[in-house]
Structure formats: C-alpha cells, structure tokens
C-alpha cells in the first residue's frame, strides 16, 4: 500500500506542484488549504506524514500541531513544518512539541521531496 501524505498549506501554488511531484513518485497525497479542515483531515485520512504550513489564516500551523498533541490524533514526530519565519521562538516551541523537521519558505522543492522521503524511510511503519 502506498504511503499517505497530507499537505496542510494555504499556498495552493506550492501545494499543487508538490502534489504533482509526489504523486509521480507513487504516494497518495491529499491537500487541505486551512488549519481547521486540516485537523479533520488528520483524523480521517490518517496520513503517514503531515506537511504543515505555519502561516495560515484561521487556525494556524502551531495550533494544529498543539491540537494534534493534546488530542493525540497522530504521532507528532510525523509532522514536517513549513514556515516563512526565520528560526524563532515559535519554531523552537514546535521542536519542543516533538515535530520531525522544519523547512523555511521559500524553499527548494527538491529539498522538500528529499526530506519527505528520508522521513518516511526513517520513521517506523505506522502499523
């Protein structure tokens, strides 16, 4: 069964291209453009990996991560965070929560793909 990746990002440009690239590699990928639906998406889709944007209108990335942690929706170490900010207090707080990795925007897509693949191969299978 192919691995499932959930992309939560309000930036559709990046999301569409990332989706295109990952689908070509045979992953099952879903894109959600806001935090609120993102939380629901995590519950329903049960992804192997979540790529989470920090800056989103409404419930932002950090809050999604906190909800995931509080409600124990999934293993928080299966989250890669995308952020427009430099490494700040906010990102540090996220690492304290236990996220897997962090990538600063604007980023190189190839770099993201590499990180995703590495994360998926390093993380133990969900079952």
């Amino acid at each position, binding site marked *: 069964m192919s691995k499932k990746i959930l992309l939560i990002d309000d930036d559709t440009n990046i999301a569409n291209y990332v989706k295109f690239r990952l689908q070509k590699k045979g992953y099952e990928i879903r894109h959600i453009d*806001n*935090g*609120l*639906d993102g939380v629901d998406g995590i519950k329903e889709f049960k992804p192997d990996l979540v790529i989470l944007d920090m*800056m989103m*209108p*409404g*419930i*932002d990335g950090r809050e999604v991560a906190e909800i995931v942690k509080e409600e124990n929706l999934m293993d928080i170490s299966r989250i890669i965070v995308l952020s*427009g*900010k*430099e490494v700040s*207090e906010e990102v540090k707080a996220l690492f304290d929560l236990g996220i897997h990795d962090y990538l600063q925007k604007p980023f190189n897509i190839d770099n993201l793909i590499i990180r995703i693949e590495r994360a998926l191969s390093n993380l133990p299978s969900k079952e």
Partner: protein
Amino acid sequence: MSILFDFLLVFNILILVYFLLINFTYLFLIIASFFHIRKYKDIDRVFKMTGVYSTNLYKPVSIIAPAFNEADSIINSVNSLLNIKYANFEVVVVNDGSKDNTLQLMLDYYKLKEDRRHRPKYIDHKPIRGVYTSERYPRLIVVDKENGRKADALNAGINIASKDLFCAVDSDSILETDVIIKMLRVFMEDESTIAVGGVIRVANGCTFRNRQIEEVRIPRSYLGRIQAVEYLRAFLFGRVGWDYLNALLIISGAFGVFDRKAVINAGGYLHDTVGEDMELVLRLHDYHIKNNIPYRIRFIAEPVCWTEVPEDSRTLAVQRNRWHRGLADTLFRYKHMLFNPKYGRIGWVAMPFFLFAELLSPLIELFGYIYVAFSLWFGIINITFAGLFLIASVVFGMILSVSAVLLEELTTRRYENVKDVIILIFFALLENIGYRQLHAWWRLKGLIDYLKGNKDWGVMLRQGIGEQK
C-alpha cells in the same frame, strides 16, 4: 394672501434648488468613487509588499480593541485579530470594566500574567487596573481598566500601544486577514498620511468558519438588508468620493488605522461626545491645518471589516439617534471650519454637505413632505407637480441606492450569488419607501435630543457574530 403666495412660491424654488444640489453632489460622488475605486482596484495584486511577513521595513501596527461585556465572543474575536497577516503587530485588548467574566476568560485562555512596567500616560483616561501579557502569545496585551466610554478605552489602548500606527477596531467585528497589509500600502505612498479608513460591511447573513468569513450572503431580515444597502452606499461611494476630493470627515470607529503620534499630539479621543470617531478626524484636520503640518487622511475601498448590525427597529432607532447626535455635536464643535477659506474643500464642500445633506436632511425632508401637502392644499402647486416631485425625490433616492449596489457589483463584487444582488437591488428600491421616512424621523429625534442635551450612548443588543460552526 398674495404675500403668502409669493413666500410659498419662493420656498418651492428653494426646496427644488436644495433637492437638485444635494442629489447632484451625490451623483458626483458616485461617479468620482467609481473611477477612484477602479484606479486602485488591482494595485494590491501588483504590489505584494514581499517584506511584510519577515522584515521590519514597514511600520509596525498596534490593533486596539475595546471590549465591554463580550464574554460570549471575546476569545473568538481576539483569536481572529491575532490571526492577521503582518510581520510586526500587536493586539491590545482593552477590557473596559466589563461586568461579566470577559477578563477572566482571556486570563485563562491566553495564560496571561500581570506585566508591571512603567507606562507613561500621554492622553487622559480612567485608571488602569492591570496590564497583562503572555509568553505563549507574545503579540497580545490585555489592559484592564475602570469603565469609561469607548473613547476612554481607546485612549488607554493608545497609551499602552507601542507601535507607530494603531488600528482601532470594535472587538466584535471580524477583520479580513490581509487588511493591515492593504492599509499599509497607503502609508507607503505618502509619508504624511496620518489616518486611513476602510470599508465596513454588514456581517449578518454571512457565514464564518475557521475565524474567517466563509460565505458572503445578504442578511435575512428586512432591516438587515436595508442596512446592507445603506453601508454600501455610505462606504463605497460616500467615503471613497470624499477621499477623491481629499476632504474625508469620517473614519468609522469600528475600523481605521491612525498614526499614533499624530493622534496623541491632537489629544486622543474625546470623552464627552457620542461621536468620538468623527470628532477625532475633524480634530486631526483642524490640528494639522492650524499648525501648518502637511498631512493626508485617506479612505480605501478594499480592506474589509465585517460587523454585526442590529436587526430590530428599536435598537436601530437608538443607534441612529446616537449617530445623529454625534454628528450634530461634532459639527457644532467645529463650526468655525464651515465656509472658512483656511480649510479649503473641507470648509467649502465637506462641512456644508454634512450640515445640509446629513445633519439637517431629516428636518428638511420631513418638512418637505408637510410643505408639499400644505402647498397643495392652498393651491400654490398643482397635484401633478406635487406628485411628480415626490416621485422624483423617491426615484432619485432609489437611483442612489441602486448605484451603490451596482458600484459594489462593478468593483469589489463580494456577493457571489446573483440572486443576492438582485434582492439587494430590490431592497435599494424599497429603502426609499417607508424606511427612509422612518430613518429621517429617528434622526430628527436625535437632532432634538441633541438640542435637549442628551449624551447617552444607549444600549446595543448583541447577537454575537463569529460563532464557529
């Protein structure tokens, strides 16, 4: 008898002249607004202001939100304010001596701690009981103070705020996330800009989700729909037109960005008026013109703040009564600007317009109805004329209202459903029969109350918007 006859005849002509003058001013404002909005419509898309997320190249902004007994909605409102997209901003919530647990809710939710620090008092206000900040939400400052009026709470907020600009909002309004970026564009165009107003629209009927507006629909009630038309008219072509003339006199208290220093220099909000928002703008004009300081006060049609309007006639009557008293009070305070050449277009166009077309219009309008009936009785005018005159005045009003809806349709086009637009057009027509006369009556009572010296705020019943689905 013939003297009376001549007198009435002259009066008829005066009414006709007034009617033409006012309506052609409105017509001019529509046309000016149309081109003005068109000119700026797409500029936000051209300038992305790429730095806004990451750098401190742009002026930082404090968003000041006074809150009084808003326990039901306060967390949602503050969350939505904290969600605004901008690099350098803070949210100052001023709890204006609420009698419910507004403060406690915030203290718990945001894990706030008292922040004891020296804070100079540039403008006067009721004593502050405590200032709270949170490590978890570094952008948030909560000020707890003794109850005063909204102006008082805003002044306290201005003192505590630390950024160059401040944005005054009603805490129960919903701001779109990109409003600050859009407002900042104006400050970027001209260094002397000291204040910018933005569009306020009726939130009733819209659905909110994820702390944002999800679907823009029209209100369901008669009064709600009428007000949707009124707000479009007031903001889209009233204020945009005045901005075009560089003679803007009102920035609504529910949403405006100001230069903090300029407001402090002018003395902050005035406590003992019910029209503190308009009063401040006029004082800024007055202060800068008197002291020969170059300045610009602007209005832009794009940024949008959604606000709940009262849908029952009693609350609405109280609100309009208060607005009219505020208008009367403000115009009276700045009467020296009227027809004063020193104030240019403000003195010659904007002030007279607000005096005759806004303040005195209910008087003139109601008087006009009585007068036409009277003239008819005495046979000074014939029935055809009277009938046509009435119809013309109503139709002209209809055209103005319909134009406002059309202007929205041609420029911002936020209503996605054509049915909504058609219904609004219908209500734009309907507004002029019945509601307009009722509105004139409320405002006339406001004028009378003002003359009697009533400075009461009245109570607005809130239904609470922004509930999450």
